[in-house]
């Protein structure tokens, strides 16, 4: 429904120019909760602001329902934004803020009043209608900003790091709230965040970005379980990288000499070469007898984290490996530092990356 077609954005001129978006293409479906995820400076906000109309790409097209909107100014695009710091108008009441878009569209007074009421009810802010933004808490301002952006019933809602200013508890609440609003209104949400957990819990699909390009697009499960490259695997969740050698018969030789059979990516050729294995810490277990497990390491450190405990081990080739184990007082386990332990995992837990 929103089609971003080879968008190119550069800041500055000449050899010192910074390429913020390097021919980025992505198609976002109707009524989808789509997240742009990446570290700061990866171009995610630039892409969002290009869709909103605040940045003028030097090349490419952005099509909304088939029509190229790139030449339209922001106030002619049927797209609304929830800004990072809310950007509520300080001299207007909550109700005036929410009604601003409709007023600018020249809607009749009665319709504006009705929609404002509806939107405030949707974000549970009806009681605050006549307050000023300065009289609201951060979470309340966030809700008003949402209501204001939703009131003109845009085709697409853009959210620019909209939850990052909230504290953890409020953020979790708003994550659920956002998801509810999205499914109730059926509006396409494009959400920008650097918080991978936020992206995983809310999104229908995620685009992981880095250095002005999209590295991988997929559902949260696809991105987490089947990262296509090291950057994605590293950015999403905690990850162990294990250097290994792929043989022509399709088996992988691990540090320490054990051989396992691991699933290759569909398009990867079966030929002998060095590869990197991705193994998630929570998909591994520690074995008291090292010989029983495909990998083994010396326990270096034990970190207690409340819900679970992280065991830091050193593999035979000197690389670090983390095993995560859920804490259960009914089944206490003690491993000694300096002890050699086996690291067990299922073959499905292993992802093979090139290089």
């Amino acid at each position: 429904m929103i089609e971003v077609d080879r968008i190119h954005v550069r800041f500055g001129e000449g050899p010192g120019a910074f390429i913020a978006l390097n021919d980025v293409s992505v198609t976002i479906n109707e009524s989808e909760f789509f997240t742009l995820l990446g570290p700061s400076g990866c171009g995610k906000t630039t892409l969002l602001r290009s869709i909103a109309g605040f940045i003028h790409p030097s090349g490419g097209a952005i099509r909304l329902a088939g029509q190229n909107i790139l030449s339209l100014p922001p106030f002619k695009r049927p797209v609304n934004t929830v800004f990072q710091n809310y950007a509520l108008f300080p001299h207007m009441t909550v109700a005036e803020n929410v009604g601003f878009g409709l007023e600018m569209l020249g809607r009749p007074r009665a319709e504006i009043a009705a929609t404002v009421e509806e939107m405030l009810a949707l974000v549970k802010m009806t009681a605050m209608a006549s307050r000023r933004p300065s009289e609201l808490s951060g979470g309340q301002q966030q809700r008003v900003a949402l209501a204001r952006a939703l009131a003109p019933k845009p085709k697409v809602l853009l959210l620019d790091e909209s939850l990052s200013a909230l504290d953890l508890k409020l953020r979790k609440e708003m994550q659920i709230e956002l998801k509810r609003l999205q499914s109730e209104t059926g509006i396409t949400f494009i959400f920008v965040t650097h918080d991978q957990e936020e992206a995983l819990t809310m999104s229908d699909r995620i685009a992981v970005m880095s250095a002005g390009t999209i590295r991988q697009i997929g559902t949260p499960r696809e991105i987490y379980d089947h990262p296509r490259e090291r950057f994605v695997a590293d950015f999403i969740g905690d990850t162990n990288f294990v250097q290994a050698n792929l043989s022509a018969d399709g088996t992988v030789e691990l540090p320490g000499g054990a051989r396992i059979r691991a699933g290759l990516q569909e398009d990867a050729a079966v030929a002998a070469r060095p590869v990197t294995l991705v193994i998630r810490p929570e998909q591994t277990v520690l074995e008291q007898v090292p010989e029983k497990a495909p990998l083994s390491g010396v326990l270096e450190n034990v970190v207690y984290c409340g819900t679970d405990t992280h065991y830091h081990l050193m593999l035979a080739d000197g690389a670090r490996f983390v095993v995560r184990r859920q804490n259960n007082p009914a089944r206490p386990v003690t491993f000694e530092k300096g002890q050699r332990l086996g690291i067990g995992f299922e073959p499905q837990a292993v992802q093979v990356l090139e290089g």
Partner: protein
Amino acid sequence: MAVTQPNTDLVIANRRETRNRWLLLLPSIVILLAAAVGPLIVVVIYSFLTAGDYGGVVWHFSWDGWLGVFTTSDPFDGTLSLANAHISILWRSVKLSFLTTLFCLILGFPTAYFIATRPVTQRDGWMLLITIPFWTNLLIRTFAIMGLIRNEGLANGLLEWLGIIDHPIQMMFTDFAILLGMVYVYLPLMVLPLYASMERLNFSLIDAAYDLYATPFRVLRRVIVPAVKPGVVAGSILVFVPSLGAYVIPRILGGGTQLMLGNLIELQFGQARNWPLGAALSLTLLVMVTVALIVYVRASANEGD
């Protein structure tokens, strides 16, 4: 007794603190009395005295100073009639001050906006350019304007050279000349407070308004102007008040014919030797400024709600 003792100490301590507070305030109170309240009282008293034949005042109560503000007495039969000259000078002062404020706002607003939207490192440089005229004496700047607009000046010369006019346009000694001079001299006073409030403007508000279908003009009217209103009010006051009392600029650019209140007052203390009238005119100016300020501040405070 043991219970009341600490209370008495507390009372004494409080009293001492109050006394110390007044002692510390004393220098500013003395300055205020000596520099503002005192002279003002002298002016009020002088306005009710009789004019001396060679200037100064005779210590004899009289309404003549105040009557002279709006009326003039016939030298032969002593009947009072409306002082048309004074009223036209008053009107010119108000009109030119209002126009000066308006043009300063029209010119100063985009200037301040331009500077506030430059990168942080460049802003100080631009502000320096705005304040540079302050480094030169007001008289010299006013004479420079005269050099530009007199009949043989740069503006007329250029227009004649371009063939747009045959004869020089008479610009000196007109209201236009005074207006031009005052706008030029007072413009920085408008730009400085405007810039101060624009620098604090949250520019994401502008993005938000654009995003919510506001056209550029509506963004200006509904978001930028309300946000920088304190700067507009401060700048307008800073320009309007000295404009109303302007003396040097109308004296040079208006010649002897286009007087403003400041010149009229000076005249009473100089050639006309009518100090009580001068004092009454000064107080009239003071009242006008006060009324204008109250009306303006009230009006602009209500407008936002």
